[in-house]
């Protein structure tokens, strides 16, 4: 079967993503009663959508294997940058209550700055100080948003 090689790797992966989500939602939706078309239960519409998504996924997968499909590879992944950015957000969430806004913002700026290829300690530190001060002025004192400002140990 020469014609069935994956030619468009990008589209193939997209199709697999659709199919995986479709299966996940369909299988989960099996727990919910479907009812009938006239009296739909909570499981009816999700199943319908999951079937449509699965069909779309299959069309995309088959399209990627057509002999006429445009040959396309997958793009290079930069997991390090992603890890610094996503990680800094998670840290912000985890540290907001124990360290307060001041500490959490400081960590957020320092960690996320590492994602830049042009990272310097002094630049990031200065940026962290400026941004933390700015946020305190705008959000806490200016707009009066309810945020824990200082580390909880100090309260």
């Amino acid at each position, binding site marked *: 079967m020469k014609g069935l090689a994956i030619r468009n790797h990008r589209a193939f992966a997209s199709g697999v993503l659709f199919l995986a989500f479709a299966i996940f939602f369909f299988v989960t939706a099996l727990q919910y009663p479907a009812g009938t078309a006239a009296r739909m239960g909570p499981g009816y519409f999700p199943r319908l959508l999951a079937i449509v998504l699965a069909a779309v996924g299959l069309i995309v997968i088959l399209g990627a294997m057509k002999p006429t499909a445009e040959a396309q590879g*997958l793009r290079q992944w930069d997991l390090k940058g992603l890890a610094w950015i996503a990680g800094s957000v998670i840290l912000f969430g985890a540290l*907001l209550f124990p360290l307060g806004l001041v500490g959490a913002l400081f960590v957020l700026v320092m960690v996320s700055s590492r994602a*830049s290829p042009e990272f310097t300690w002094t630049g990031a530190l200065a940026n962290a100080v400026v941004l933390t001060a700015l946020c305190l002025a705008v959000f806490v004192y200016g*707009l009066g948003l309810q945020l824990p400002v200082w580390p909880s140990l100090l309260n």
Partner: protein
Amino acid sequence: MDLFHNLAIGFATAAQPANLLYAFFGCLLGTLIGVLPGLGPLATIAMLLPITYALQPDAALIMLAGIYYGAQYGGSTTAIVVNLPGESSSVVTTIDGYQMAKQGRAGVALATAAIGSFFAGCVATLALAALAGPLTATALLFGPKEFFALMVLGLILASVLSSGPFIEGIGMVVLGMLLSLVGTDLSSGSQRFAFGIPQLFDGLDFVPLAMGIFGFAEIVKNLEQDDKLSLVTQKITNLFPTRDDVRRMVPAMLRGTALGTLLGVLPGGGAVLSSFASYTLEKKLSRYPEQFGKGAIEGVAGPESANNAGAQTSFIPLLTLGVPSNVVMALMVGAMNIHNIHPGPEVMTKNPTLFWGLIASMWVGNLMLLILNLPLVGLWVKLLTIPYRYLFPAIMVFCSIGVYSINSGTFEVYEAAVFCVFGYVLIKLQLPAAPLLLGLVLGPAIEENFRRAMVLSRGDATVLLTSPLSASLLAAAAIAIILIMLPTIRARREEALQE
């Protein structure tokens, strides 16, 4: 006249000193953030949402509208000065606007964009005011099956107009709708896809999702590509168009405004479609087609008028039918929900000061942008020289605080982190995120209307095709799909939507 009476109510609201101030700050902040590279109106609005939380609903909406126009305008500025479209609706502006800037006519290009946007804004405000009444009346003719058909049409058009293959756009829409089902099912009260996590019972919040995908993931992408900004360095001196410029730009503005006003109303339409259509039209009609791509003033005047008109009239389906026609409008729904306003036909009757105040303040916002931007262009350009390594942590900080303050909870922060990873996967697979968000916002309403329609027809799905209104809406959707499948149109669409 009803129209003028209503507009008078609106201007009375919009002209209150406090509201004027909010409109002003909205425009200022919107432009400030919108000018920054890689931040379109969506990310800008999402980022600035938290500062509107503390405001009264009408003030908050007025400010948000100001932010939206400001962001839109900021995008045009960067398109002209640094050849970097702040958002997709100013992509075409880069073609001739940047060329004008290279010829030392940046000031004229910016002035053209500002005047065109203002003129288009005035016309679109009137169109919005005039059409709101009749369209709201039409909404009363809509039953569940008509609403269902209208939303399907909107989603299909949104996939047609997104970049990349159409079928993948549809996949994203459906995936978005599936994600929208997370949480409590309103009809039965049972939990779906929540896996016992109490924070998910209310569903996936739109804002963390949008921030994760359009804020955080976008930053990761921007950090990967170290493209140098090609800043036009010469001073912007002359803002005034010559007599010849005026002669050429006025008709382009008129056509662009007309086109944008019409296309903005379409579900799935809006600013992006309008600007592309206008550019094509101007190039076709021009007596100097050879100048396009080399600094033709029509290539700035037309699309810039069209995208502003489209941006404004895309509020029409949202405010009258409750159907957001594009992602920015979808985010507006989220913002309104925070203030307990549910866009739809009832807003106009139940809350006329808010409704007309919002419309009037759109005009006020346009006026402010005109006054604000021309003198401040120098400042906006300076902003672009801030290195990205200082800029992106600032974006991270504002987004994180914004996400936290939706519910004063850290769950949303983690949610945004998860969608940052998901958004990165989408970027790598070149899947369009806009249809996903639109599906997410429209999902619950589609399910509800579908269920109701089926209850009324006792489970007979053919009723969707026998009612004339829903049949014609679905037929329009089918035609859009057939058109997109035609090879010639497909090729042209790929050309037009290429980034």
